[in-house]
Structure formats: C-alpha cells, structure tokens
C-alpha cells in the first residue's frame, strides 16, 4: 500500500517534471510571442544640448555663435518602439543598426509600441524645465527607437492649454535670438511649419536605449530631449533677408537658413530619449 502510494506519487511527479520540461521548451521556443508586462509611466519633453553644453548658447557648424532667447515647439504624438532603428553611418561605430526603408516600396518594422505620447504639447525648450506630456500606458521593455511628430498646432488633439499655442504664431516651432560671426551680429526670429509631404512631419527611427518601466517600480520618467544645437547646426544666418528699420531678420522660406533649420528639425540627431527625474 505504501509502495503503491509512493509509486503513484512518483508517477505524478515524474510526469509533471517531464511535462514541465516540455512546456519550458515550448515556452522558450515561443518567447517572441510572450507579451511584455503592462506598465504605466510618466513622460516629458525638454530642451537639451547634444554635447551636454549650454542649451541656449552654442557655436554651429557654420561658425555662428548662437544665443537663443526663445525656442518653443508643438510636439506630439510620439511613439516608443522596441525595434532597432534604421541604419546610418553611425552603425559602423555601433554595429547594430538595421535598414529596411525603401521609398515607394515599403516601410521597416518598428516592432512593438512600448509607450506613447498621444497628444500635442507646447514645449518651452529654453526654460530649463521638463514639460510633462502625460502618463503613457505600454509594455515594459527596452526602447531602441522612437519617433516624434511635428504637426502644426491644432492638427492633432491638444495636451497643453490652448493659450500656450499662441506662442507659436501658427507655426510648429518658433525661435528667436542672436547669431554672431566675425563681428557681425544678426538678430533673428521666425517660425517653422514642416511641409505636409509624405512622412516629413514624422521624425522617424531616432536611436534610443532606454529601459521603460512602471513609474511605481522605478523613479523617473521617459524624457524626450530636443537638441537645439542640432536644429540649427547648419544654419547660415547671413542668408536671412535683411529687415527694414532694424527689426529682427525673419526665417524666410526662400533662404538657406530656413532649409537648414527644416533639415535640422527633422534630423534624428536632434532628439534623444532618457529616463530621469
């Protein structure tokens, strides 16, 4: 009787053990189908420098010393993805980038959306503060790539109070400041509205390496950093048309400065993602 009970126990344990092993093998084989843990985390956007230097004062690639007195942008939505970004020349250094994009043919696989900012927020990029952009629901995991959308005010639901959008003068971004080179001082101001052509209003495939977690489990939040020095990296301020009566020069769409800012504001080198307070 004792033997019989032990045997039944052993049969059960043995069968369970092998079954567990089989399930484990199956589970390992299917890890790609395992959903991530559901999380909620805080998000924000702030102005920053790609070099870690001053956000508002920098020298650009055209040797202009730039001092920004104002820089505001309407950002959102933004999406945080699990897949690696598209390839570029930095992949020779990092060795992990993957290219799939092909105009007219198809888009690459962005992977799982791990988190998102769903509304449009006005960000004061020179304030030194992080503007809260709400709580994101998503999945725990490493965000390797994200994208930000740069639509004109009102094109997507607003997250910021309506009055804040008036600071943008109807544009997606607005900047003002002075640029100095070889003794020439140029005061400038102007707005940027990214053309609604193809996917131009989406800055895609921005590299990241941020572990997204539930805010209850890990202090901090996911912060999109906007590198103002990269926005204006190739702007030749002398190309701005001279103004009358000493007013600030305006970013004319027919100037090199405008084309360079448009290229810069759409550059994936102009944005970063971090997790911090």
């Amino acid at each position, binding site marked *: 009787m004792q033997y019989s009970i032990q045997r039944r126990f052993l049969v059960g344990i043995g069968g369970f053990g092998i079954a567990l092993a089989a399930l484990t093998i199956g589970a390992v084989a299917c890890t790609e189908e395992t959903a991530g843990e559901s999380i909620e985390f805080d998000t924000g956007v702030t102005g920053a420098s790609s070099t870690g230097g001053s956000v508002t004062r920098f020298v650009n690639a055209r040797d202009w010393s730039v001092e920004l007195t104002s820089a505001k942008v309407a950002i959102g939505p933004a999406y945080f993805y699990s897949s690696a970004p598209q390839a570029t020349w930095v992949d020779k250094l990092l060795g992990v980038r993957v290219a799939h994009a092909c105009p007219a043919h198809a888009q*690459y696989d962005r992977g799982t959306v791990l988190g998102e900012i769903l509304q449009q927020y006005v960000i004061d990029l020179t304030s030194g503060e992080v503007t809260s952009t709400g709580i994101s629901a998503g999945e725990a995991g490493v965000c390797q790539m994200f994208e930000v959308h740069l639509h004109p005010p009102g094109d997507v639901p607003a997250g910021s109070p309506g009055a804040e959008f008036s600071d943008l003068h109807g544009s997606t971004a607005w900047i003002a400041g002075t640029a100095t080179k070889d003794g020439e001082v140029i005061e400038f101001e102007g707005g940027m509205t990214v053309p609604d052509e193809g996917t131009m209003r989406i800055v895609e495939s921005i590299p990241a390496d941020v572990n997204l977690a539930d805010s209850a489990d890990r202090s901090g939040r996911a912060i999109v950093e906007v590198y103002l020095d990269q926005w204006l990296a190739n702007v030749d301020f002398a190309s701005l048309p001279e103004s009358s009566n000493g007013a600030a020069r305006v970013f004319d769409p027919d100037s090199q400065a405008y084309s360079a800012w448009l290229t810069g504001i759409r550059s994936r080198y102009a944005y970063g993602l971090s997790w911090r307070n």
Partner: protein
Amino acid sequence: MTTGNTMGRGRRTWLRSAAMTTAILALISFAGCSSEEATGGGGEGSLTLSVGGGAALQQGFPYTEGNVEYAFVDGWSLEITKYIVVLGGVTLRDPSGGGVVGEWAGPAVLDLATGDGNSQELATLESLPATRLNLEFDLLRATGAATNRTAAEQDLDTMIQQGWSFLVEGNASKAGKTVAFRFGLDVQSHYHDCINGKDKTKGIAIERDKTIGAFIYAHALHLFWDTLAAGDESLRFDAFAAVAGDDDLVTTEELRQQDLTDLHDENGDPLRDSDGSRVLYNDGGMLPPDQLNLEAFLNYAARSSVHFNGVGLCGSSAL
C-alpha cells in the same frame, strides 16, 4: 514477487503516463510555434541566383513600367551606360536553427548595364535541403580577389583604387545640353532577413530535385530619387548637373560639394523647381549633420536600393 510485478506495472504506467503527457504537451507547444518551423519534406534542390538593375538600365529614363511612367520632374532624359556592383557572401540558412546550408563566397564584379541590361547569373548553389531557407548576401568593396565577370578592367582597377562597391556612369540630356556622370560609392553592406518580393514571405523555398531561380535587384531607380523617406518621391537630376563643372562630367568629388541645405544650380544660385520654390532633398532625418551632401545622400540611397526577388526588402548593416 507481487511487489516486483506491481513495480513493473508501475514503471510501465509511469513511462506511459510521462510519454503521453510529454507528447501531448510537446505537440501543443510546437503547434503554437508552427510558423517558425521549416517546412521541408526531405530531398535536395538547387538555387540559381541572378542579379539585375531593372528597366532603368535597359531603357534609360523616361521609361514606362506597367501603367507608371518613370520620368525626371526636372525634364532630364538619362541613360546609364555602366552600373557595376561587387557581390558576394551569399549564404543560405536553415530558418529554424540558423545553420548554414549553402554558401557562395564570390565576390564577383558585374556591370549590370552591359549588353541589353538584362539580369546576369551570379551563382548556382546545389545540394540544398528542399525547404524554405533564409537568404543573406553582401555588397562588397572591390578588391583584387574579386572575379571580374562583365566589367571593364580599367573600371575595376578604379574601383579597387577608390574602394568603391558601386560605379555608375551615364549621360543625361535636357534642352540640347548633355551632361555625363561617373561616380563611385563605398557602401559595403551585409543584407539579411530578406523578404521575397514575389510572395512577401521571408526567404525562399527550395524545391526537391529542381533548380529554383531567384533575383537580387540592384534597383537603379533609387539613385535619382529626391527622398530617403517613404512617399512623394520624385526623380531629379538638376542637382547633379549643377556640379558638373566645365568638363560637363559629374564626379564623386563634385557630388560631395552639393550642399543639401543649400542646393545650387550651375550658376551658384539657389536650385529651384518649375514653380520657383527651392528644391529640397528629403534625407528622412537620416544623414548626420556633417554629411548633408549629395554624395552621402547617394550612398544611403544606393544601400537601400538592393532588394530580393523584385522589391522584397532585406535588413542591411554596414560592413
């Protein structure tokens, strides 16, 4: 004795129970992963891989394919007389385990514009398992180790000296003016996880006792698009022609001089569209701020121009 018999029945019961449980659970587990499995039924087959550059090499621009006319929006007509690529590193892998089941190292140098511009055979891989396989291949920098199939020797020598993996040559005409171009690109790349453009599946199915044909498509059209992003692409040549100089020949070095933030015409004035607006090349935000020039743009365009079996996309990483 009784105990022994009981133990024997118990051992058999234990084994039957464990075996059945394992079998059922394994079936459940693997049924859930069936899409990841190879579907081979045994036997062997072969694959002949060809390479071509598409209708642009056969007909020049403008050309019509299906119901679509591929024409330059700035009015240029264009013929490509040389389109030389260096290919190698063809690897076929078992998708379930990643093991290599077929290889062709090459590399070979092919001028895809020779003759009538039709595709050229690259390699035949034999004794492959008759199952679905993943394809990888490399676009390589020209070296003396490469076998020259159809390129002119002097062009290959130039490519070796310059470290190029692409050499493109041709002529463009507009309003009685002709501009030649001859430029090289260094875009060594490894292509992997290729999607089959014919049926949109990953890789290619090898059939038992048959030789299957497949095709690497070095899609020449890409080099003249004005965007690296998706949508609203246009074919343009004004930005190339503007840097041709007095010899009316566009070179790699001259392409490097064309600033994408300040595209200029041959007189140094802003390059404008027919409506008077500035021409803007859309780099999709991909190019580093210190590489915003037409050569860098072409490097990226060339790299993403290589497809599998039509316009099937591959992942690619720089070598």
